């Protein structure tokens, strides 16, 4: 009976913690989300199994994890650098006939994994796809024309501004002059701080979405 009462209390605490941590944590599993889910599951089971352990210990550990999760989510929301460190960055594994072997080795994925993921997404031939991207949550995205006769995607959009911050790494990596970006912002009468997401499309056109 004690186990049942403890289970109800811990279930309620976990439910409240998960609600405070937010929907994002339930929907997608970033590396640290996975760690948090495993830790919370373990923390909930411990005081349920061991009746000698005070419930307070389990509650305190859950609250600490909840706070850290909220803090890390907030920091990664506000800072691109923190987001890169905590969540990582998506990797373009295949780009118009070229494989990114360096990233494949770094991420320890082989051709069989890639072919398996392609089959799961309904593609069987690299000729049918333009890009294959490994997302930060471990999922694979495929950029491909809708049909064989449809226009091919020349290049995926390159982020130029994210959360009001210029993505200088991307500008340097893809040789995009900053003057060009600034001129485009001026034309739209925008400051980069006002832009939630800005990117350059495959036709080298700057597109901005305001906050």
């Amino acid at each position, binding site marked *: 009976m004690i186990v049942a009462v403890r289970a109800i209390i811990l279930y309620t605490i976990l439910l409240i913690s998960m609600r*405070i*941590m*937010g929907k994002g944590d339930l929907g997608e599993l970033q590396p640290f989300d996975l760690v948090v889910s495993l830790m919370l599951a373990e923390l909930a089971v411990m005081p349920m199994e061991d*009746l*000698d*352990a*005070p*419930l*307070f210990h389990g*509650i*305190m550990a859950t*609250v*600490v994890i*909840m*706070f850290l999760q*909220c*803090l890390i*989510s*907030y920091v990664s929301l506000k800072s691109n650098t923190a987001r890169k460190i905590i969540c990582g960055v998506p990797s373009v594994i295949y780009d118009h006939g070229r494989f990114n072997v360096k990233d494949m080795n770094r991420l320890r994925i082989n051709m069989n994994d890639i072919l398996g993921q392609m089959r799961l997404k309904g593609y069987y031939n690299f000729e049918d796809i333009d890009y294959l991207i490994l997302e930060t949550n471990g999922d694979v995205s495929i950029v491909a024309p809708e049909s064989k006769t449809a226009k091919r995607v020349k290049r995926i959009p390159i982020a130029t501004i994210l959360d009001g911050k210029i993505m200088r790494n991307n500008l340097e990596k893809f040789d995009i002059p900053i003057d060009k970006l600034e001129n485009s912002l001026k034309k739209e009468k925008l400051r980069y701080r006002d832009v939630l997401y800005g990117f350059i499309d495959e036709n080298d056109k700057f597109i901005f979405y305001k906050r």
Partner: protein
Amino acid sequence: MRMVVISLIILILIIGVWAWVYYTSIGPVTTYYWDNLTGLTDVVRNEDWERASKDIAVYTDKWYEAKKLWVFFVNQKDLDNIDSSIRQLGVYIENKEKILAQAELEHLIVLFYVIDENECLTIENIF
């Protein structure tokens, strides 16, 4: 930001409750027992059984009072060990068993020391 603040407030409350229990009950009560049980050791050594009986009765009552709060924060096994030890000590004193009472007193002192050690925030405890 709102959720960070809410979770921080909950965390501060929980840590506050723990700190309050530690600094107002666990710390002072364990210190009280170290001091008084050491004194009781001398009383038992001198075989002053009447005084020893009175003292252990007081310590037992005080223990059951403290236990009411500790039960929420301290491992039940540790509390059961103290319960058992304090009762054994009472029986040894009642029967004037000097050696057994002295041994049980040492055991009880260690049990209180262990509780304080376990709850204390130290590098050794963390690792």
